[in-house]
């Protein structure tokens, strides 16, 4: 599996911070989503209690995941769907390629699916000569730009309206040139004119799934544009691609989780469209696909079951952790270098592509705890990032200089009798050097600090030294 550019996280971040256009795009959208979540949460008194219920539903499902997967497969097959289990990304791609091949497909429409990004589906289908069309507006935008999503629910959050307008005018040459493209609704209408034809021409429609319901064999998608419904109901063949942790036992459980999902994601009470699909078109149905396939991907997730990292599988992909993350909102999603950015990506990515490649991600957190505070599934994201740091440290993969510094510091911190005399000495020197200005503009070995900010100088002596004098009756 490709590791993307995660190993170059630091360079990615630096480039992102210097990208004025990106910074403009980031400055409003994510904080706006955070504010809307806050309003929605305030309007629902039982919101916090619902988070506990949601967590419990997911914990229960994960504890019996094998049974629920089996139950789901049985129900879905009984409803006429084909259920495929894919152990790896490659397995999933091969299954989907074969379905497209058997359907004689030429055009494939797609609803938004992060799992399809995870398995690199578009490139593989295009290599087979298929025309693949993303139908979610954000996904469509990044597809025409040859980019990847930078946010799991707002894939084009890194773009400004100017960029979108310019791309449309460049590519939609057969549409009127004098049309106004400022408001989101105008941009949607513009994309719709192109996409309508694609929906009608598509042979296969591929969507993700927000939930798979075990008791009914149903896949559920939530969207705001309705594109997912057209993607899954117009073509002859519908493929729903979902990872194993999307399983939920009952319809009742889904209704609970849906109350959390949209509020956490966009601050809506519920998304504009919430669609439940069970099997292909039945005799008498006015529409729907002739064949319905559900591809369930593992790709390393089952190895997390029963480990400290199992909790990350509770995620319902709302993106709230990103919108509230000081790191994500500073650098955007592409800097993380792989499919899932932000705090959830910092925990999930090392599990999927390995700590050697994704090591920066769980390290690049201030542990401010806002992600855990807003997570509707109460995933202890900072704690799980720390877990990865522990794995890295145990494996001896912490960067050498950092490790040595930590060792030297630890040798002192564990020995107060050694620590305090040395601290006195060091602080006396540092305080002497900094006395005139009160802060250092530069200091050897502190370049990481002083590159962007001054280092306040110590006041004079250590507190322990002053306290000893004070207790001995020396006036301060």
């Amino acid at each position, binding site marked *: 599996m490709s590791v993307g550019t995660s190993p170059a996280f630091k360079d990615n971040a630096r480039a992102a911070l210097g990208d004025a256009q990106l910074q403009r795009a980031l400055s409003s959208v994510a904080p706006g989503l955070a504010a809307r979540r806050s309003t929605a949460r305030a309007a629902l008194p039982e919101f916090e209690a619902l988070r506990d219920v949601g967590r419990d539903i997911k914990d229960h499902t994960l504890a019996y995941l094998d049974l629920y997967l089996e139950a789901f497969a049985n129900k879905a097959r009984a409803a006429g769907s084909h259920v495929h289990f894919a152990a790896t990304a490659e397995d999933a791609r091969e299954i989907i390629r074969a379905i497209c091949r058997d359907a004689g497909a030429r055009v494939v429409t797609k609803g938004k699916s992060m799992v399809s990004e995870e398995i690199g589906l578009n490139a593989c289908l295009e290599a087979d000569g298929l025309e693949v069309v993303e139908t979610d507006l954000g996904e469509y935008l990044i597809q025409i730009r040859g980019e990847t999503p930078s946010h799991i629910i707002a894939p084009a959050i890194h773009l400004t309206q100017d960029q979108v307008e310019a791309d449309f005018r460049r590519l939609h040459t057969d549409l009127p040139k004098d049309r106004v493209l400022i408001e989101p609704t105008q941009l949607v209408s513009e994309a719709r004119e192109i996409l309508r034809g694609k929906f009608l021409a598509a042979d296969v429609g591929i969507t993700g799934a927000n939930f798979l319901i075990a008791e009914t064999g149903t896949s559920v998608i939530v969207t705001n544009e309705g594109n997912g419904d057209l993607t899954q109901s117009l073509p002859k063949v519908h493929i729903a691609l979902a990872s194993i942790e999307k399983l939920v036992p009952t319809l009742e459980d889904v209704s609970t989780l849906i109350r959390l999902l949209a509020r956490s994601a966009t601050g809506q009470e519920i998304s504009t469209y919430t669609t439940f699909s069970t099997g292909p078109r039945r005799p008498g149905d006015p529409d729907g696909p002739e064949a319905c396939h559900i591809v369930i991907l593992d790709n390393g997730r089952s190895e997390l079951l029963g480990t400290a990292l199992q909790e990350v599988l509770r995620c319902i992909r709302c993106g709230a952790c990103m919108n509230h993350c*000081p790191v994500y909102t500073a650098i955007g999603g592409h800097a993380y270098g792989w499919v899932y950015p932000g705090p959830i990506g910092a925990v999930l990515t090392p599990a999927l592509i390995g700590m050697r490649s994704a090591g920066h991600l769980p390290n690049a957190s201030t*542990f401010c705890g806002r992600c855990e505070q807003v997570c509707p599934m109460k995933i202890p994201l900072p704690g799980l990032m720390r877990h990865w*740091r522990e794995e890295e440290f145990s494996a001896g993969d912490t960067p050498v200089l950092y490790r040595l510094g930590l060792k030297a510091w630890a040798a002192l*911190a564990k020995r107060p009798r050694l620590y305090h005399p040395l601290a006195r000495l060091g602080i006396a020197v540092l305080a002497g050097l900094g006395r*005139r200005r009160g802060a250092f503009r530069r200091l050897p070995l502190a370049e990481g600090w002083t590159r962007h900010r001054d280092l306040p100088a110590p006041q004079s002596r250590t507190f322990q030294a002053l306290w000893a004098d004070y207790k001995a009756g020396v006036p301060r």
Partner: protein
Amino acid sequence: MPAAAKGRVRVGLFVTCLVDLFRPSVGFAAVKLLSDAGCDVDVPPRQTCCGQPAYNSGDKETARDIARLTIAAFEAHDYVVVPSGSCAGMLKAHYPTLLADDPQWAPRAAAFAAKVFELISFLVDVRGVSEVGAEYQGRATYHDSCSGLRELGIQEQPRRLLGSVKGLELVEMTDADVCCGFGGTFAIKYPDISNAIVARKTEQVAATEPDILLAGDLGCLMNMAGKLSRQGSKIAVRHVAEVLAGEMRDPAIGARP
């Protein structure tokens, strides 16, 4: 005074490494506030750092060693008080987790955690302090440090005590509860990202046009003071305890003497 009514208690001050090394005036401010609240304050010499640099770098063994050292140093005290939400959070929330599998130390860690408090919340929530006698003429804004806010629920207590400071006008900044970008070793491991976050913070601080910026954690304060100083700002930066205790004779953090 409600504190006196509760009787005197023996408080061990966990100084924190940053206060010990960089800003002893915060330690003395804490001692004054605690004494005024009816506490006999003791500073055990066998303390160094709370261990977060090791814990957050994945070095659990070192963090455990430091936890045991710290717990042992405070076993004779009724309370352990810490002038930092982050270090208090480490002692209170994380030591028990760290030592949970150690049959000898798990109960000691739990007993220890139960008596650990961050300074300002200890004054308000445990000692019933509702006002201080200090005076400060000027406009202040307060930054909520993350660990204190989210691990210990410190938000209203410092504001309540600041409200009792004569002459002090408290102005809320936008996103006071958003991280300043310090994050311990994060600030040094990812300096560019840390800078972007603190620059946004100082922008919010400056927008309230305060005379002074206050917070309860020296790490965050040094980060924000360092950035303001680099930006040439005139805004003073101090630990909230310094203002509450009237411990103002030293220059503000990072300020020229």
